């Protein structure tokens, strides 16, 4: 296996202007990417293309002026190809001292990871022998929904036992109803239990914020006499519900995009926190949430509901409505006791 190292190229003034312009565009693309809906990778692609242009020009320059470049085994962690004095403010950048000194003097440097330098690298072994295959698992309860619930409960119990350690829950493994109802049971705090935030990791490897379990005491009966707002979780998906609901909680065009589920979850959470704050500002409300699926959105929404119930108890009640066949069935309310 070859050696990976990093090349630092000191950029001359005549090239600095051109590369700085490219880097500015790349930085702007990266900033725009953060504002885009999850799954929209156009700006990330633009950022990468611009960074590649900078790296390519710098490598070509370094080939003609070898004295203006140098290799090091240290692999820094920076978000830009063109480094300037401002780059020193990036936390944990890992830049070598001599490079830091040059940057501090105002020199511009392009840094590029070079994966194929001649030599032999020994890769640290993560263990002896391959990762073991998964254990076979079998539901003890009959029926698909019960089996899903049992599987999800097993995962939640494991995550709780590890107190939010390495074991994560994956909302995509279960249906919308099982996800909502099981999470509600586990959000319930019993006397003497302590809140545990369990990690959420989707099967595509993307990670969302942890979900707070055993976090709030929920009531089941005596719904308050608050005004009711009826929502469908996602717009457009089931227009036949339009005459039943007052509005849609999420815009389908923003949420239902191909892309890392963790990002969709994060987006759904952020939107929900803002909207729940607006709803609460008008007084306590009951939200009837008509939901037909899309687990990252469901998870993001109920995480926001849980946080709201923790921080502002007695201001919100969410009643899930699950689509079954031709109608909706009501789930247990998310309401503080």
């Amino acid at each position, binding site marked *: 296996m070859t050696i990976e190292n990093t090349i630092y190229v000191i950029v001359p003034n005549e090239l600095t202007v051109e590369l700085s312009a490219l880097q500015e565009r790349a930085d702007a693309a990266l900033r725009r990417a953060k504002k885009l809906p999850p799954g929209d990778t156009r700006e990330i692609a633009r950022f990468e293309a611009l960074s590649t242009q900078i790296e390519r020009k710098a490598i070509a320059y370094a080939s003609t002026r070898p004295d203006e470049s140098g290799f090091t085994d240290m692999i820094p962690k920076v978000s830009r190809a063109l480094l300037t004095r401002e780059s020193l403010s990036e936390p944990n950048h890992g830049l070598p001292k001599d490079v830091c000194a040059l940057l501090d003097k105002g020199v511009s440097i392009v840094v590029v990871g070079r*994966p194929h330098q001649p030599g032999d690298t020994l890769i640290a072994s993560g263990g002896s022998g391959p990762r073991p295959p998964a254990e076979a698992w079998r539901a003890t309860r009959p029926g698909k929904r019960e089996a899903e619930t049992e599987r999800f409960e097993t995962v939640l119990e494991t995550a709780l036992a590890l107190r939010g350690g390495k074991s994560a829950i994956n909302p995509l493994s279960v249906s919308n109803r099982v996800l909502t109802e099981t999470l509600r049971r586990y959000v319930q705090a019993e006397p003497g239990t302590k809140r545990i935030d369990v990690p959420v990791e989707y099967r595509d490897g993307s990670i969302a914020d942890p979900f707070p379990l055993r976090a709030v005491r929920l009531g089941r009966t005596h719904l308050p006499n608050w005004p009711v707002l009826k929502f469908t979780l996602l717009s457009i998906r089931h227009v036949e519900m339009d005459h039943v609901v007052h509005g849609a909680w999420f815009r389908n065009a923003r949420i239902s995009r191909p892309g890392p589920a963790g990002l969709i979850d994060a987006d759904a959470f952020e939107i929900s926190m803002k909207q729940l704050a607006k709803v609460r500002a008008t007084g306590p409300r009951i939200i009837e949430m008509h939901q037909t699926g899309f687990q990252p959105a469901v998870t993001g929404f109920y995480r926001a509901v849980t946080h709201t119930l923790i921080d502002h108890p007695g201001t919100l009640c969410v009643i899930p409505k699950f689509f079954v066949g031709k109608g909706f069935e009501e789930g247990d309310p998310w309401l503080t006791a």
Partner: protein
Amino acid sequence: MRDLGRAIRRYADGDLADFLFDPARAAEDPRGLAFAVAALRDAIVSPPENLLPLMPVCDSSLACAVCDRDITDRSLDDGEAFEVVRWHLGRIAPDRQGEILDVNPLLYLDSAARELRSREPARRAVDRAARLYYDRYVVNGARPRPDELRPVQLACQNVIIGLAALRHDAVFDGLRVESYTTCDVAHLATGEADRAMASLLLCDAFQSGGTMEIRFGRTVNTEGGKREEGGRRSRELPVPPGLRRFARARGLELGAKDRSSISPAEARELFLLVTPMSEELRFNAFFAFDARRISPERLCYALMAGIWRDIELTYLLGTSGRATSILEGGSDPADRIARGAEAEACRAAVMIGTLLSRLENSSAALGSEVVEVDEDARNAIPWVIQSDMAAVYFAVQPGTLIPWGGTGATLRTKRTSEAIIVLPRPMPHQSDIELLAKIQAKEPESAVFLLVPQDTEMSEFPNVPWLKCPQTLDLLDQVVRGKLDTMRISRR
């Protein structure tokens, strides 16, 4: 052999009546043993004298038991039979003649009988599933959820070789295959239908994200059993006999603990069995498995789903410490150094993959006055990755056409050249040129080139022999991004 004789008589009166070669029939009866032996003797490649024809595999090949003596020997009944092989009567590639069908003739007859018995019900069940699927999803333009029954038909050259109906099952968090049937055909290698179907099932099980367990037949309702149409009780089925035979002939026992299930551990072994890998990739892959850098299932999926090719994966695993991250979808784009290094390794891998395809499909007729008439001609080119230099050696015939050469003229290797050596470097640096010179000095008989993207400015490196692949750096990046994204979201 006496056991085999008894088994033949039993099956000849039962499920295999229309298939087994009957010793009692006349020499001119195509279903008689004498006729089959004569046909075997007339095969283009003469078989050994100790092959006893059992039954046809397809129109032009026979399943034959390997005996310990000449089949005309009077003491044949006292002898022993070993494995069952497939003997082709017509023209066939030498390495495909005599492939093992099963390890034991009794097991073969038993599995063939079970397979034939289950074929028609499976075909009908898949037909039903296909009609339902059409009405529910094709007509409405909808996509089924993983837990909905999906019919699958495998065909090769307009011949159906396999049918199945499958869905993800929450009861055991794995793949349920309600129906399964395959067949061997004349134009495919032995067991190819089972290999292809197993690959498809395993890729689906991987994508569905469960435990990788595969169970067969319909779900058993634990509350007393659900009844199907016609009043029959729904039930699970054993692992299909054809699939078990395919695995058994290659040293893997399926359904060892539970006859209806391919366990996650067996699924892993089966995935490795059905995934074609070069020896070099196998070495690098097992090294990575042992070091827990990557799971076998993920690597097999990357290959079987066509995301990365054999040579590309070998290159990545052999030359880059970032292969693990690459196969999991790559680093965060904001970590530019890591992402840049991964991109560079991936671009190089894609370039050599493209070059290998080009070399394997190159026409010897280019530049000559001879007209080439071969169709689908593909010359396998042996290759080796030089791990410590990230260089690739292609073993080609002297005088081979070299594509993508510098001046636009047709380049050929010298009459003395033994190999084309390429140093794939999407963004070449002076240190790469120095390495190229070292390789050239070390390998004077080989044609050594720097392999770069189409839009690389080579005037900075005068006198450096180079090949330019047809993709520009931007295009390579698009290809790489697609591969990384597919790997990241592959296991939903």
